């Protein structure tokens, strides 16, 4: 058992499940948005604003944003732990990896907060 403290769920199974569920949510959102745009070729601003200011759509958008954040966290964490290692770049790897991991987590969280601000500011 390998201990990790910067992965999203601290468990491989949890991260794996979150990755699959978040991928499903993102796909559903993409299909819905593309379908909506195709179904409404003469879309105007007020229609678009009405759609996005409704509570179900806000929740769906926020759920998708949280899914993107979780998906990105897990994916980026994998990339960083694959390539920024002592094996590949030497003894400074741990400090560099922690810097990028914490930076990635901070940016991800900021995007989620920003998304809430945008969605509830419509």
């Amino acid at each position, binding site marked *: 058992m390998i*201990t990790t403290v910067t992965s999203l769920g601290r*468990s*491989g*199974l949890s991260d794996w*499940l979150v990755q699959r569920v978040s991928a499903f949510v993102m796909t559903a959102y993409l299909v819905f948005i593309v379908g909506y745009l195709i179904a409404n070729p003469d879309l105007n601003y007020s229609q678009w604003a009405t759609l996005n200011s409704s509570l179900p759509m806000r929740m769906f958008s926020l759920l998708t944003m949280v899914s993107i954040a979780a998906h990105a966290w897990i994916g980026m964490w*994998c990339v960083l*732990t694959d390539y920024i290692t002592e094996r590949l770049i030497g003894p400074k790897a741990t400090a560099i990896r922690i810097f990028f991991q914490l930076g990635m987590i901070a940016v991800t969280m900021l995007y989620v907060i920003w998304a809430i601000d945008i969605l509830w500011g419509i």
Partner: protein
Amino acid sequence: MLNVSIYRYNPEVDSEPYMQDYQVDTQGKDVMVLDVLEKLKVEDPSLSFRRSCREGVCGSDGLNISGKNGLACITPLSSAVKGNKLVIRPLPGLPVIRDLVIDMSQFYAQYEKIQPYMINNSPAPAIERLQSPEERAKLDGLYECILCACCSTACPSFWWNPEKFIGPSGLLQAYRFLADSRDTATEERLANLDDPFSVFRCHGIMNCVQVCPKGLNPTKAIGHIRNMLVRSAT
């Protein structure tokens, strides 16, 4: 004449590895890659490689043959030679001891982690622990692994994290014991695998399946382990 290019490195003499070119007369026969190496060894005794059974059972002569991992003894030239050239390198990702001989300590350390032996603390029956034919059939495609390391050393996840990711070979063996009806340590085995590296660093690249000289499917076994983890933890 077949052109053969072989990775050479003697750390006591060479500052860095290099490729040495040879020409071998195979008399037009579709011999195995190991036969070519044996022929070269006669001409150049300094050439080092591992071999033993020469029939794909011992797993000693795993090599990177024209870009694909495989056993030299059961790889015919017809499937390895491209443009009359044969390129032989050691299995990638593990330290080279000399020429085509690699240090497999890391590979074996991962194998050791999965406790590759039966765990059953109940009193042993008088003769043996029995299995039904169906239970025994679950081990097919798993027990045949010869630990040649062709799969693990073809896996990018193992290249990047050989000390944390068990690797396809070790995981195939892990499932071999998880699937065994006589083993009673299932929960303990699963608990040891539920971290972001041991199993879940497998991204389904499937190089392991492509190169396994025994035709086994470690990716499928890893999928079964994931399913067992899901069943056990949800």
